């Protein structure tokens, strides 16, 4: 605990340094301190995961009235491990990335506060401490969206959406958690854990669903996701990386903490709801990721997709635990947690990569990019590797965790109650469908962004980024490879977190060792051996290919149907690449396209110009949220009619209200 507190202290110091030091020192000093803080937190959390103990710390000096209660257990420690790793990389990335507004006092200190709160949320172990850290996390990240481009309309709208959604979510969480204390007494998690079984099941269910709404919204669960594809792209890239890989994971953490740990599992229907959120999010996110052309928006939607898969795993785990299958439940929970850790790595790297693209080309619109592999080969290689990982290419981290998830769902079929069976079936189907769609999205992201010819002057004249940005990205690629090739090394730690989350003491469902071997079922993969096989065959083919080549390849023009010129405009763009899928799923995506034809004055048969517009906006936002917002605005406008600024009228209102109250009371 002391080490973790030291780490958190470093982050506070980093924030102070950012606001006190002169401009030239500010970024390296605060980033260095922040990175140190993350490293210390990482070590502290790893120690808890390895030894499995629980350490607590409590003080009344930092927060008035109730004080601050921190306690680190393996479940929280796992989230700290993931967060601190990304936080470390983000700090290093900042050294090369921070320019202009991001170098300002506000921005740098807010970034450090954001990292601090991300590290503090998983250890906060009372309602007041949790809500304090949670709100600080929301507030600092919301302001960070505004630092970089506060004059852009998109950023301001994103911050507003984010602010409103996160506040509604926080209110819901607060209300849910407070319900748990009404009968139980204390507000620390230890008290709630002790007394929660004494509450009536209706109160527990109501409290869980309230907390679920808030946490699910943070985890980007559809239909509470609308803020996410706005806020994540608009934030500066290191912040996007942290938001997408760590902050959304806090939603998952909250669901596991409240449902599994504090409320001891609850009923099957809780978890059916969690898995339903997950399945809808996975499919909706994957579909939108395939059609997005803004690279960061694509990544944000894919976050919704992966977090959906995580929620399916958590839901399956909870339901199987409640129906008396602790072994499979633990498997599903481990799969969900492994996916969280894997996602933190590859999504962090992808967002940092997107930041590098934006920095060197000035745009994040895939339709304007192309050919970047020639300009920034290192970034391209790392981006490709992370994209492969998210596409679940074998022996990378996405694959290991999805395999584990599939095993959890597959062996969940051993339970014969209808709700669980439907849940497992839907989970398997969602996992299968998102697999294919994710591949389309990331082939598009890499293939259109980095391959082919440059589609704009910005992409054609791209300059490679600073070394610190590449190092940070490379750091985040390490988990993809390690979790992919030797997942067994990490699983005892994940198992410890899963048992804390489910409050069981069952033995690990996966054998010790470097590979993945299930103990209760026939299911094995040996990623290290597969990796060796792949490399071996690759080397053989390469050697044969080299022998066959008498000379190096001759460069020729690409086939262009016999025409002489081949311009970059003739290439497929991100929009056209995804067009077939957009057409197939038009009912869900509701794309809006307009064709505007201007005819020549002389004849209707000749066109002067033709304008085609295609836009895929979030259909849920358009048809679900907009009407509500419009109605609220209308009510607000009509309410303005009774306010004309006259003090007499307001006094009259007060008088009438007082009379009414007296009448009601009498």
């Amino acid at each position, binding site marked *: 605990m002391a080490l973790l507190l030291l780490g958190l202290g470093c982050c506070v110091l980093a924030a102070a340094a950012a606001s006190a030091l002169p401009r030239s020192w500010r970024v390296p000093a605060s980033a260095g301190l922040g990175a140190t803080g993350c490293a210390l937190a990482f070590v502290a959390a790893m120690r808890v995961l390895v030894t499995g103990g629980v350490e607590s710390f409590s003080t009344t000096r930092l927060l008035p009235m109730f004080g601050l209660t921190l306690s680190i257990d393996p479940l929280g420690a796992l989230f700290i491990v993931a967060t601190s790793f990304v936080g470390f990389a983000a700090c290093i990335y900042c050294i090369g990335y921070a320019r202009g507004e991001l170098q300002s006092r506000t921005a740098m200190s807010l970034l450090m506060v954001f990292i601090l709160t991300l590290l503090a949320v998983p250890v906060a172990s009372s309602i007041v401490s949790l809500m304090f850290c949670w709100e600080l996390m929301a507030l600092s990240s919301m302001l960070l969206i505004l630092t970089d481009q506060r004059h852009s309309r998109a950023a301001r709208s994103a911050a507003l959406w984010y602010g409103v959604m996160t506040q509604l979510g926080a209110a819901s969480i607060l209300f849910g958690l407070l319900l748990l204390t009404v009968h139980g007494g204390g507000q620390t998690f230890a008290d709630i854990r002790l007394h929660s079984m004494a509450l009536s099941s209706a109160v527990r269910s109501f409290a869980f669903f309230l907390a679920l709404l808030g946490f699910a919204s943070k985890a980007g669960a559809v239909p509470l996701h609308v803020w996410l594809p706005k806020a994540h792209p608009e934030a500066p890239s290191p912040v996007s990386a942290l938001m997408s890989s760590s902050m959304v994971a806090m939603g998952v953490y909250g669901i596991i903490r409240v449902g599994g740990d504090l409320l001891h599992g609850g009923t099957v229907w809780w978890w059916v709801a969690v898995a339903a959120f997950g399945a809808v999010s996975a499919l909706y996110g994957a579909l939108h990721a395939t059609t997005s052309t803004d690279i960061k928006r694509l990544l944000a939607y894919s976050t919704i997709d992966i977090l959906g898969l995580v929620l399916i795993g958590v839901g399956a785990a909870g339901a199987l635990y409640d129906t008396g299958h602790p072994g499979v439940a633990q498997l599903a929970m481990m799969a969900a947690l492994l996916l969280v850790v894997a996602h933190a790595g590859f999504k962090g790297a992808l967002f940092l990569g997107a930041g590098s693209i934006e920095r060197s080309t000035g745009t994040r619109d895939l339709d304007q990019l*192309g*050919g970047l*592999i020639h300009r920034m080969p290192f970034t391209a290689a790392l981006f490709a590797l992370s994209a*492969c990982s998210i*596409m679940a*290419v*074998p022996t990378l981290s996405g*694959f290991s965790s999805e*395999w584990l998830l*599939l095993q959890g769902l*597959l062996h969940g*079929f051993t339970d014969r109650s209808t709700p669980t069976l439907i849940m497992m*079936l839907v989970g*398997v*189907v969602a996992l*299968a469908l998102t*697999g*294919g769609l994710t*591949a*389309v999205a990331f*082939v*598009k992201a*890499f*293939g259109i962004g980095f*391959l*082919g*010819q440059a589609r704009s002057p910005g992409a054609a004249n791209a300059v490679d980024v600073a070394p610190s940005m590449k190092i940070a990205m490379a750091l985040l690629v390490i988990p993809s490879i390690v979790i992919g090739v030797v997942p067994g090394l990490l699983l005892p730690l994940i198992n410890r977190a899963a048992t804390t989350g489910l409050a069981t003491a069952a033995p690990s469902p996966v054998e010790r060792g470097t590979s993945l071997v299930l103990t209760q*079922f*026939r299911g*094995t993969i*040996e990623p290290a*051996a*597969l990796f060796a*096989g*792949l490399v071996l*065959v*690759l080397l053989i*083919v390469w050697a044969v*290919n080299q022998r*066959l*080549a008498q*000379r*190096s*390849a*001759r*460069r*020729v*023009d*690409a*086939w262009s149907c016999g025409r002489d010129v*081949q311009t*970059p405009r003739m*290439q*497929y763009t991100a929009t056209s*690449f995804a*067009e*077939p*899928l957009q*057409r*197939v799923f038009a009912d869900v995506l509701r794309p809006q396209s307009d064709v505007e034809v201007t005819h020549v004055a002389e004849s209707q048969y000749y066109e002067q110009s033709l304008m085609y517009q295609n836009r895929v906006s979030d259909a849920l936002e358009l048809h679900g949220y907009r009407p509500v917002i419009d109605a609220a605005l209308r009510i607000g406008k009509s309410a303005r009619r009774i306010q004309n600024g006259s003090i007499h009228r307001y006094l009259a209102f007060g008088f009438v209200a007082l009379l009414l109250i007296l009448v009601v009371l009498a």
Partner: protein
Amino acid sequence: MIAIVPSAAYSTLATLVQIVLVVLLGPLLIGFMAKVRARAEGRVGAPINQPLRDLRKLLSKERLHARHASVVLPFAPMVILAATSVAVAISPLVTTHPLLGSSADILVIVYLLLTGSVAAALAGLDAGTAFGGMGASRAMTIGALAEPALLVAVIALSIQSGTSNLPSMISTTLTHPNWVSGPSRLLALVALVIVVIAETGRLPVDNPSTHLELTMIHEAMILEYAGPELALVTLGASMRLGLLFSLIANLFFPWGIATSGSILGLLLGVAALVAKTALVAFGVSLIEIRSAKLRLFRLPELLAGGFVLSVLAVITGLVTR
């Protein structure tokens, strides 16, 4: 059933046999299907080993790269071949004990095949031409709809066996012969045939013999390849066909596959696999002869049909177990 675990040397030998067999079998199956088609149309047709001859010819040709292509273009064929070869190596094709057979999970095989598709699609985008992009976009769209059906159809079988490990699935089917005629298997079979036709680019999904630009899918994607690299890509595609046909054959009619550690069994396994895949190829070419290429935007209906059938197979499997 007493599990006989053959020696590592035997497994290695079996794996090598499988790889060599599929390298030869894939192109030969394609030649066989062309022959069946030619005979049905009243032509003599090219000899069955024509695809192998084409490969040899391509290997001796000059290597050409498109001007704007990057390192992805020469690298992709190797990735395609490596991923497909590893999938072939660990799959239960002639024996239920190939090297690393314990890792031959359906998810591993499906995602190894997906890795090949991804590499091919990226290579299609690499040269920055319209055709490459068109092929890549269409191939990925079809793949995105076909992969899920493939996965779910095989999961329907794995629920019955209680494992997603392919060799175990096949050996449990051998001990429960009545499973083969169950409703769940039959639904999964129809779904798998649809998916495999889509994944291997046969009619009515893609016409492998067309070179009209606007109708090409796989051929458009690999348009920039020439010489030895084209040979590797084509070999990868035909190995994929060989693997998928063999898997259909073995999952739905496993008899003949070697289960013990004897060399004779291995030889029998090879003979059985050749016969079974020839039968599958014959069936697929009958479908091909009787159908015209579907419009691209009618394909999702076919593939969604396949997907629904595979989900039905899972549900039937759960209800009837």
